[in-house]
């Protein structure tokens, strides 16, 4: 499991806050920073709007990793959205760890609109960590044919 698999391309679902991380990913793009293209971005109004259901559902539908990224504490456009997200995501990740999912499959980060380089680094590190873990098949839906 710890051996990196040669032909494994991790599928990552990235929930990015509209006000910062989404703009941060834009900045990484316009700055021509090279980083893996494994993350599928989904723009959300605020990390506080991320229901734990989204994360469970992403894993259920085959994501190898889920990234939630938003504004730094104190910078939330809605004043307190990321404070609420911090609690909810902490509980979610504790529950995922509790049933035995690898903790590295979920990641949360604070990336501001000015941190294009940090966004690239977060995604690169995440992809690298998930490559070590291999495909996620614990929570993934098995479609019988």
């Amino acid at each position, binding site marked *: 499991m710890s051996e990196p698999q040669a032909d494994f391309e991790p599928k990552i679902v990235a929930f990015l806050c509209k006000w910062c991380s989404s703009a941060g990913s834009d900045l990484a793009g316009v700055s021509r920073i090279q980083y893996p293209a494994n993350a599928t971005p989904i723009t959300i109004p605020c990390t506080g709007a991320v229901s*734990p*259901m989204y994360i*469970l*559902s992403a894993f*259920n539908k085959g994501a190898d990793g889920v990234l939630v990224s938003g504004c730094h*504490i104190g910078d939330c456009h809605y004043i*307190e959205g990321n*404070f*609420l997200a*911090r*609690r*909810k*995501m*902490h*509980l*979610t*990740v*504790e*529950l*995922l*760890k*509790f*049933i*035995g*999912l*690898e903790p590295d499959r979920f*990641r*949360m*980060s*604070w990336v501001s609109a000015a941190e294009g380089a940090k966004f690239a680094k*977060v995604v690169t*590190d995440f992809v690298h960590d998930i490559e070590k873990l291999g495909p996620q098949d*614990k*929570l*993934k*839906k*098995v479609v019988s044919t």
Partner: protein
Amino acid sequence: MINIQDIRDTARDMLAKGEVRAVIGYRRGTRGMLAEPAFITDPEQASELVWDPTCFHNLSLYLVEDRKFLTHIRKTANAPIAVVAKGCDARSIVVLLQEHYFKREDVYIIGVSCEGTGVVDERKLAPLLNGVQATDAAFDGDDFVFTTAAGEKRLPAREVMADRCLECRIPYPKEHNVVHGEDKTGRQLAEPFAALTRFEAQSAGERWDAWSRHFDRCMRCFACRSVCPMCYCEECVVDSITFPVTPATSAEEKANRIRWIERSATRSENITYLMTRAMHLAGRCTDCGECERACPVNVPIRMLNNKMEREAREKYGYEPGASIGGPSLVASFLDSDPGDFIR
């Protein structure tokens, strides 16, 4: 020691004076020793009420049902409804009040303290009775006395009590209109979260092995949801009932409707269901343990809720069902909330 006559008298007086429109309590059921929920509207029926170690139902569920029914028939209540509540049940009522599900004056809480004991766990009792059916159960100090065809059997309560009662920290209904029994808060029959701590000591691989077996076993009968007073949503995320299917609905529309969770009882869907349920109960579950008792395939559902409860307690200092006016767990925050998992 609670004298059942006190509870009966309270119920009879309240009904006779018309101060409450009904009393929800326990009466002797039709299945052996087990008590069943009783809905009493006639003062004469108050003598049917019982209080014994088989009164495990969380009756706050029926307050929820009552409010749903009143909404359905578009009537408002003319008097409160009285309910017999143990410590955990009273905390459930507090959570419902905190969420403004009904008003404090709509409910009259007849608190009963579990004192030094709690409710029986049938699964622990069965082997000790050697397969003989008990017809009656009674509290007696720190013992339970069971009446069987083979005579009386006295057992120390600790041996046959439900885990949730052993681990219970507050076996006393703090929120009440009238209360019977002594406040034995602070008694410690077992370490709180003992079962959870034992389970958590295992490695991630072992935990997954255990949980994957549990998740495979779940058959999605939704007994845990039906029995839970906190699962009061009109529409559950697992079965959307408001999706309108008309003759004009195309197959594509039906196929593309949002389904967070499939209804099939497969492992992945069961995980999503049970985990979502645990998340929805975070900071709301008062550990009445009814979900686990109702589960026909013995999934340790309570452990998921316990995990959330302990996180809330240790990391956020949050105690579910502690105050009616306080903020809820996920709608509040502190500057000191842990954030070390965030990059």
